[in-house]
């Protein structure tokens, strides 16, 4: 695999940076796979646009940030408008259907998944804070060379103690949302 670029975007406080860290750390034990994770956020810890980026490659990763995303996840309209067009031809775009118009047609030809990310966290898992794990589950479906088990193991290690099961459940729900659409 040459570069595979992932951009997870949302509002500050939605946990997209933690999702990015978990995604990157899941590649830790895979000796074949290099990974670089970066983020961009405002000076405060809540609100504003926030994004995490993860670049995977079997070769050395020079430029650390996303140049054109292979995979974009957007939880807010603002994030979608900001990054929606900065993607590769044929990229996967996952957007929250409650906030982003399902009829959205990006400039480039993309594989578009409009799914209820935050709603699934709130209604199905019963914990809005797990929206980032729902998003991560959905995204994980497309990332080459990274197994579901590796990500689940990292989630258990990285999320606050006592919330491991909820977060893993959220991850699986996100993954299911995408596989249902694909089938």
């Amino acid at each position, binding site marked *: 695999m040459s570069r595979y670029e992932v951009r997870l975007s949302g509002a500050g406080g939605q946990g997209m940076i933690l999702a990015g860290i978990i995604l990157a750390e899941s590649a*830790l034990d895979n000796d074949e796979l*290099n*990974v670089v994770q*970066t983020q*961009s956020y405002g000076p405060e810890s809540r609100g504003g646009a926030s994004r995490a980026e993860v670049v995977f490659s079997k070769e050395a*990763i*020079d*430029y*650390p940030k996303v*140049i054109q995303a292979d995979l974009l996840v957007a939880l807010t309209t603002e994030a979608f408008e900001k990054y929606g067009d900065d993607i590769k031809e044929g990229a996967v775009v996952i957007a929250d259907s409650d906030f982003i118009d399902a009829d959205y047609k990006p400039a480039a030809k993309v594989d578009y998944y409009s799914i209820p990310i935050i709603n699934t966290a709130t209604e199905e898992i019963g914990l809005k804070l797990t929206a980032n794990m729902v998003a991560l589950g959905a995204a994980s479906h497309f990332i080459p060379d990274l197994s579901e088990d590796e990500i689940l193991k990292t989630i258990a290690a990285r999320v606050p103690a006592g919330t491991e099961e909820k977060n893993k459940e959220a991850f699986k729900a996100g993954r299911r949302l995408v596989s249902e659409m694909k089938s």
Partner: protein
Amino acid sequence: MSKAKTLLLQGDEAVVEGGMAAGADFFAGYPITPASEIAEGFAEQLPANGGKFIQMEDEIAGMGCIVGASLAGAKAITATSGPGFSLKQENLGFAIMVEAPCVVVNVQRVGPSTGLPTSPSQGDIMQAKWGTHGDHPIIALSPSSVSETFDLTVTAFNLAEKYRIPVILLLDEIVGHMREKITIPPADELEIVNRKKPKPEDKDNFYPYEETEDLIPPMPDYGTGFKYHSTGLFHDKTGFPRGKTEDAKKLMDRLMGKINNNLDDIIHLEDDLNGDEDVVVLAYGSTVRSAISAVNQVREEGIKAGWVKLKTIWPFADDYVRKLAEKVDRIIVPELNMGQLIGEVERVAAGKAEVTGINRYDGTLITPADVVAEIKGAL
């Protein structure tokens, strides 16, 4: 015997790991974005290893505190970013004058003033050299990856201890906050340098600032009976000011000499050159990554290009760049500032090679495409 361990770490966290590996046992500082992770890491790790962490009332106090700790025998470090680096300058000069080994980390953000606190910059290159008033020697290192941050933190401590000088570690926000895999070598594989100390029997005939052959006087810890004096005033070998102008010249020459006589040991750089380059990209910090990517791309198109990565920013690699300028047509210097280190390259190239810059100062990175365009424009 410890084993190598592989972790996913931020550059800021790698400073903590590198510091602990180098034997750091003291941190004093003040919280500031994007360097707070360094303070947080030391706050956790130092006491667990018998070391000391103290959060001071301001940036100035953090700098004073590590110099005091250093004189008491500690391997001390502080970390800050632009606004705090500005505040630390006076006591940094004091550390140079009393020759107190210590490490000062500056995770650069966009300035001036409060600037862009969470965005990367390389705007403090010249401040690292000239931030404190008066002529003075300084060592500044700049890593381009998380692994290199670990390595250069160890190097920073080693050079500080060996040459009795504060060493500045210049990260940029990208290197400070980005996460990469890093394999931390076992402790017994690292070379650790500790300051030279006088022998107890030298107590009665001890001159704390004596002009020794290597120009680096041995340094006793406080409380070991040497009862010596240090001051920010120009002083003679006894450590006291005599108010004589020749003492100023003598001390300044020694302070500069101890660094200038050891440039080969202090200047660290890497390059990828085939010897037939038309154009070379000379970079440092996170910008190196785009330089390497761009050079690899254009080489595939048959363009004769190479790259140089400076790990030591100060003292500047005069001899290396001078020879480089004699061999190549053009040197490109990408920087996340309006053009700082390029002035040094131009000075040393002295017209022998054309020198051009790529400059970003809006908190965004220079991309490989930017460097490719400049390389092609340069041909």
